[in-house]
């Protein structure tokens, strides 16, 4: 007997019991659907975070001051006052640092900002003009901070789209408006293009002012909160990291690298840390979804076992009419695999639709995870074989006389 015939038999049996078939398939649809949706969602959020970090520049190094060592206690990263504008200029102009291309000294602090009756608490970053190109900031209206602004300690500001919306309302032209920071009136000269993003450190919720204005007028500090260094290419990142490290150690007259009063992080360092976290998150989500898939599989086994019992007479009859053991096993196994594969395909569509809708709602990039799809289809097929085998074997082992007698 040809396999195609058995397949036809299996299909017709499945269509005869529509409700039962539907319920069995539903279990698998939910299982596979949730695996795909959750894995895709996890990967989308990972991608979204990675994009955000990448958008800050891929050949970027950021130097942060470390808290000075006092006895055994070391201050938190970024909390110290060890980096100066002179450090930044020295790195930029040094002839020994061959891998460095551009340097952006930055001073940032959170502060309350008001505009008319609106106010918001946001990140104020004091920058030099090169910040825009190093950090991939583009301007949608007006212009960015200029060299002249920095030299003249101009009271001007460039606002991110989120900050602009918070301060002036949606769709209101921000350029030319006045904002108040720390009692100082600043004129908005530009608005940046949205980078997309949400949560903490949203690049759209930021205000840029000239570095000198930030240091001397707004916050009264002589130090920098970070120095962004652009390497010549992304291939020399490690080299650049080492060169700058030794250069600054020498400048700060520190002999032991363990006592460094700064730390240098590449975007890759940040990226890999974040990827690790989101990867764990994705695995966790996938694991939870896999449990529902397992439950779906057990559902299939349950339905198939019920089917075997319910169809005992039919199996006996088929055997009496000449069906061999192998034919019976194949038919029942095919039924189980059909259930899971149909469920798998429908579940895949459901999962993709769910993750598409969710990523759109959460404004994340939508990624179809091929690996999740192959996993789901493979697993559903395997579930069919695994959980279909025992009922199929049980069916084929039925003795025709016993089966025919069964009421």
């Amino acid at each position, binding site marked *: *007997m040809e396999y195609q015939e058995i397949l036809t038999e299996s299909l017709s049996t499945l269509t*005869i019991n529509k409700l039962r078939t539907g319920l069995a398939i539903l279990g698998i649809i939910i299982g596979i659907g949730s695996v795909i949706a959750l894995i895709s969602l996890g990967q989308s959020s990972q991608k979204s975070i990675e994009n955000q970090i990448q958008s800050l520049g891929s050949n970027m190094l950021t130097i942060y001051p470390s808290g000075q060592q006092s006895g055994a206690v070391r201050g938190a990263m970024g909390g110290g006052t060890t980096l100066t504008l002179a450090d930044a200029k020295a790195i930029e102009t040094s002839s020994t640092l061959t891998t460095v291309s551009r340097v952006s000294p930055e001073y940032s602090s959170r502060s309350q900002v008001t505009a008319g009756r609106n106010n918001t608490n946001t990140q104020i970053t004091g920058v030099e003009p090169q910040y825009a190109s190093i950090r991939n900031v583009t301007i949608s209206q007006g212009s960015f901070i200029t060299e002249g602004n920095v030299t003249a300690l101009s009271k001007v500001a460039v606002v991110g789209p989120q900050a602009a919306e918070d301060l002036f309302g949606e769709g209101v032209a921000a350029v030319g408006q006045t904002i108040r920071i720390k009692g100082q009136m600043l004129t908005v000269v530009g608005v940046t293009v949205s980078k997309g993003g949400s949560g903490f450190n949203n690049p759209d919720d930021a205000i840029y002012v000239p570095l000198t204005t930030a240091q001397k007028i707004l916050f009264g500090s002589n130090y920098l909160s970070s120095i962004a260094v652009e390497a010549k290419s992304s291939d020399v990142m490690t080299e650049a990291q080492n060169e700058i490290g030794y250069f600054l150690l020498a400048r700060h007259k520190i002999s032991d690298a363990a006592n460094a009063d700064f730390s240098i992080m590449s975007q890759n360092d940040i990226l890999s840390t974040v990827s690790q976290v989101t990867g764990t998150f994705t695995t966790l989500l996938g694991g939870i979804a896999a449990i529902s898939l397992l439950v779906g599989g057990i559902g299939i086994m349950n339905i198939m076992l019920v089917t075997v019992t319910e169809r005992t007479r039919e199996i006996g009859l*088929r055997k009496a*009419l*000449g069906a*061999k*053991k192998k*034919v019976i096993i194949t038919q029942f196994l095919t039924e189980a695999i059909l259930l899971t594969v149909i469920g798998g395909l429908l579940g895949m569509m459901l999962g993709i639709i769910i993750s598409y809708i969710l990523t759109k709602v959460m404004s994340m990039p939508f990624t179809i995870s091929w690996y999740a799809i192959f996993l789901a289809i493979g697993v559903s097929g395997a579930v069919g074989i695994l959980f279909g085998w025992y009922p199929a074997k049980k069916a084929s082992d039925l003795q025709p*006389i016993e089966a*025919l007698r069964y009421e």
Partner: protein
Amino acid sequence: MISLSHLTKIYKTESVETTALDDISFSVKKGEFVAIMGPSGSGKSTLMHILGALDLPTSGTYTLDGETVSKLSEDELADMRNRKIGFIFQAFNLLPRTTALKNVMVPMMYAGIPKEERLEKAKKYLTMVGLKDRMLHTTNQLSGGQQQRVAIARGLAMNPAILLADEPTGNIASIQADEIMKIFEQLHDAGHTIVMITHEPDIAHHAERIIVLKDGKIISDIKNGKRTRLWNTKKS
């Protein structure tokens, strides 16, 4: 055609041994219509299972159409049932919610007969049992008598060596039962070998030979005058 020699079947449970068939020997010639009678517990169902290659005897030999059935494996038995035996059960045993046509095609499907040939034969046999207009009716749309006729068509499908009927009219109203027996007589006249198990004397009298079992032994084996005469007059 059929030959049973010193056939014994003993059922063993943990403590009890039950002899269902006790040293039975008889043979059935090609074209014969035999009824096997007996009260319940006489062993006629056991005999039917062995004749139908659904079960194997404890000892003795069973030869069907030149092949020794007693020593076959499970799959070989399935093959034997498929090719040599046409079953007609008391409870019809058709596939539920499946058309008459498809039911008749099942044994041919297991035999690997091509689809066109299957369809053609199924139509032929269904027409023969008077169901030409009901071929596409599903099992549950047919009356008991009609279902049994589908079962007869299915039994004939593989052109088997014997038709084995187990209480074929047991679940059917008496008018329809007469129609079924008419079909059996026609099949007999056409030369089919039929072995029919029944406990109803009226039904048994349609056969040309009646074997009576009691306690696993044959207590009588007689020619049934009425049917033999009909057979003979037709032949002569």
